[in-house]
């Protein structure tokens, strides 16, 4: 064989062998090194850091930010909606419910070293309101926010409001340093009073949080020096990281994986009821779904049980009405549609479509495997009554664009939407999804019923004073909605998160979806 060629080959071989050898020896070097810091790793499916300004964030950012920033109070829905003092230690309201006072904790420091005062707290909340971004509207109805003295914060209200639910909101309720500029945040900075401060952020890769030595709560040695939020889009990878111990908690696991993980002795599963409910909105302004009987028929054709069993693998409860079961406003005795082919056929005949024969367009957010599978099962069920359905996965934007097309006939027939609350209050479920809208917002059934509107408005108005009375109004409205079926209410899902058994103190809180409070954890 040719000399030069042999040389090339041998060099290549050497390179390859070195590389492979390096690869093989890689596995063993994980341990050792005594000064390795204590870390906890939470693996999420997408980069949580979209909005950086604490006045603007109102989605998945809380995964990291609830550890950096703190509100006055947090709520624990798993414990009978108990309110936990955070930056406020005590609170009281005036008899007419129009004034609230919160006493601030003393000796609280920001990561920058600045001391927290009532003035700073008041100005930060005012900044949130003035910017009007994100979830700022949770403060609607608040007239004034004053610093009465160094550590007393006063809210003056226009009407009685469920104030504790508002200040404990997952979004828009942070106390931060109002003197920092928006641009500073978007350079990738954060400065709060929380137990962890931002150490490093690499987009789509990880957020590294480092413990804040001067945290008001103090530290013990079992807690973690670093908390890492790692971003891994592939669920199969997340699962493997957990099994190998490279991850401590994982988010958004397909339930098939959870099922398989149950047999792993090193892993526990946290499974709690959430507030997240899935709806299929039916276009009430376009034939054939403008026909109430057809909508009811469709409600009877959804294979609820199969969906709960095979799509959600049991980690969900079939919805009963608009408001999820663990939120006030829910009606235990409301009717529930169940899969019933004969009844559906009857209703279709009543609606003038005894032989089906029409085609529907089902839109969902591309990438959402559950919505996709629901679509596939529904399509299968509809084919039994000779109804054809096109399933179209779309980006969130284009889905909304289609849903908001000027002519209702250009819009989709069925679209999927999840709803969860900003704070523990059913208002959004009813008002945003079923009240008459001039311009389409989230009422994707385009449903309009003056009676329902009136009931919702009345419920909201009295929710600051009497939750019982508000609940009655909401239930009455839901009865009408169920009968007219502008939406199919599918299921309220459980938050299922597998985590390592040696991790102590982990408790999921559905009021702060997907957030992990690293301060509570230890090993």
């Amino acid at each position, binding site marked *: 064989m*040719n*000399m*030069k*060629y042999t040389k*090339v*080959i041998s060099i*290549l071989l050497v390179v390859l062998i070195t*590389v492979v050898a*390096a*690869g*093989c020896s*890689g*596995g063993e070097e994980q341990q050792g*090194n005594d*000064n*390795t*810091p204590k*870390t906890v*790793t939470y693996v999420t499916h997408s980069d949580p850091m*979209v*909005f950086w300004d604490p006045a603007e964030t*109102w*989605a998945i950012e809380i995964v990291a930010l609830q550890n950096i920033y703190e509100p006055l109070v947090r709520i624990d829905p798993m414990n009978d909606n108990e309110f936990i003092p955070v930056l406020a230690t005590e609170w009281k309201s005036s008899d007419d419910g129009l004034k609230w006072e919160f006493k601030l904790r003393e000796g609280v420091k920001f990561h920058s070293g600045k001391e927290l005062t009532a003035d700073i707290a008041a100005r930060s909340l005012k900044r949130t309101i003035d910017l*009007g*971004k*994100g*979830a700022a*509207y949770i403060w609607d109805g608040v007239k004034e926010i004053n610093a009465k003295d160094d550590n007393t914060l006063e809210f003056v209200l226009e009407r009685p409001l469920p104030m504790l639910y508002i200040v404990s909101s997952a979004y828009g309720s942070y106390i931060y340093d109002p003197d920092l500029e928006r641009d500073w945040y*978007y350079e*990738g900075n954060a400065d709060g009073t929380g137990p962890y401060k931002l150490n*490093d952020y*690499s*987009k*789509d*890769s*990880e957020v*590294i949080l480092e413990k804040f030595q001067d945290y008001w709560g103090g530290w013990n040695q079992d807690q973690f020096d*670093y908390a*890492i939020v*790692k*971003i*891994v*889009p*592939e669920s199969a*990878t997340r699962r*493997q*990281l957990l099994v190998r111990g490279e991850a401590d908690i994982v988010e958004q696991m397909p339930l098939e994986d959870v099922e398989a993980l149950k047999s792993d002795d090193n892993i526990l599963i946290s499974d709690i009821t959430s507030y997240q409910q899935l709806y299929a909105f039916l276009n009430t302004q376009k034939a054939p779904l403008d026909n109430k009987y057809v909508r009811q028929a469709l409600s009877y054709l959804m294979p609820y049980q199969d969906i709960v069993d095979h799509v959600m693998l049991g980690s969900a409860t079939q919805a009963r009405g608009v408001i999820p079961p663990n939120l006030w406003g829910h009606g235990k005795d409301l009717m529930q549609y169940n899969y019933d082919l004969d009844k559906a056929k009857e209703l279709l005949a009543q609606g003038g479509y005894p032989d089906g024969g029409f085609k529907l367009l089902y839109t969902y957010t*591309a*990438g959402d495997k559950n919505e996709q599978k629901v679509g596939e099962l529904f399509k299968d069920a509809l084919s039994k009554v000779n109804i054809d359905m096109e399933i179209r996965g779309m*980006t*969130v*934007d*284009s889905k*909304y*664009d289609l849903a908001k097309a000027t002519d209702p006939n250009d819009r989709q027939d069925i679209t999927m939407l999840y709803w969860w609350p*900003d704070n523990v209050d059913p208002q959004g479920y009813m008002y*945003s999804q079923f009240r008459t809208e001039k*311009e389409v*917002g*989230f009422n994707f059934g385009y449903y309009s019923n003056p009676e329902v509107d009136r009931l919702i408005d009345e419920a909201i108005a009295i929710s600051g004073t009497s939750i019982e009375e508000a609940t009655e109004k909401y239930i009455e409205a839901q009865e009408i909605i169920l009968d007219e079926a502008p939406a199919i209410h599918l299921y309220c899902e459980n938050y299922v998160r597998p985590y390592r058994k040696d991790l102590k103190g982990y408790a999921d809180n559905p009021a702060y979806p997907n957030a992990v409070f690293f301060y509570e954890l230890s090993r």
Partner: protein
Amino acid sequence: MWKFIIRRVAIGIFILFVVVSTTFFFSRIVPSEPAQKWVGAHATEEQIEAAKIELGLDKPLYSQYIKYLGDLLKGDFGMSIVSHRPVSLELKNAIPNTLELVILSVILAFAIGLPIGVYSAIHENTIFDHLGRFISVGVISMPTFWVALMLQIIFSTKLGLLPLTGQMDTILKLTNPLDKITGFAMLDSVITGNWRVFKDLILHAILPILTLMSYSLGLTSRMTRSILLEVLNEDYIRASRAYGIKERIVIWKYAIKNVLGTVTTVLALSAGYALVNTFVIEAVFSWPGIGSYISRSVINLDYPAIIGVTLFASVSYIILNLIADIIVALDPRIRFVKGGD
């Protein structure tokens, strides 16, 4: 010669201009609401209106276009609608990570593919040739995303030899922080002598590089083979053989020279394909490069980001092709045949 280079550069600039303009107008014609995305899913009408003004979407299209061109010249690609950060900043962080993969995989593909191609050509129609050709056609016939999945499941899940995803171990990052000098992680770790990190980086890069390499490898060996075959049929080679010059010298001294010139075109082409394949596989490996960036931007319809990556890729291609063309043109021995594949 200079005339040729100037003409090529002019064409390159023209292509860039067309790409910039079409992507811009495309992104504005498509019925979508960037303002809605900017303020988030639960936004009110007023918030969306305010965002339109903030993003300059309330102005007429031509003035948006002129402003956009001006910004581009300043290196400003606009703000990502999804992350609210400058696209140029995000690209600056992502590009070195992708280039590391592309460069290493093309070098490896070249080092392996070239000998295979040469060997196949010399031993045309022998069993080695068939095998070599089968392998090189085989690797370009596999979907890269599938190769990535299969490599992961074999080398990481089942054998546990290599890390599954990511660029670097996070805990190592905390204990042995890497100083940023060039932005290329591997290079930086070598410069600073941070060998533990270097080793970790290599381990993480093996699977993505193997995946990217497969296509380029097939391309290189196929094209080397066909170019060499062509050259071996040229008169001067036949003449050399007729004079009784040793076959080894004929091939490695005379023939290969002619092949190498044209092969730079192959290099440019495989670098191009490797780059576009990162669009598909980086997400599979959670690799923090422009591939992950664009695949997410595409799903979110984040136009400034899509356009930013497109422009980066366009500039890379144009420069690669330009270099290849110039090298070829500089070498007087080579008759340049365009469209050599």
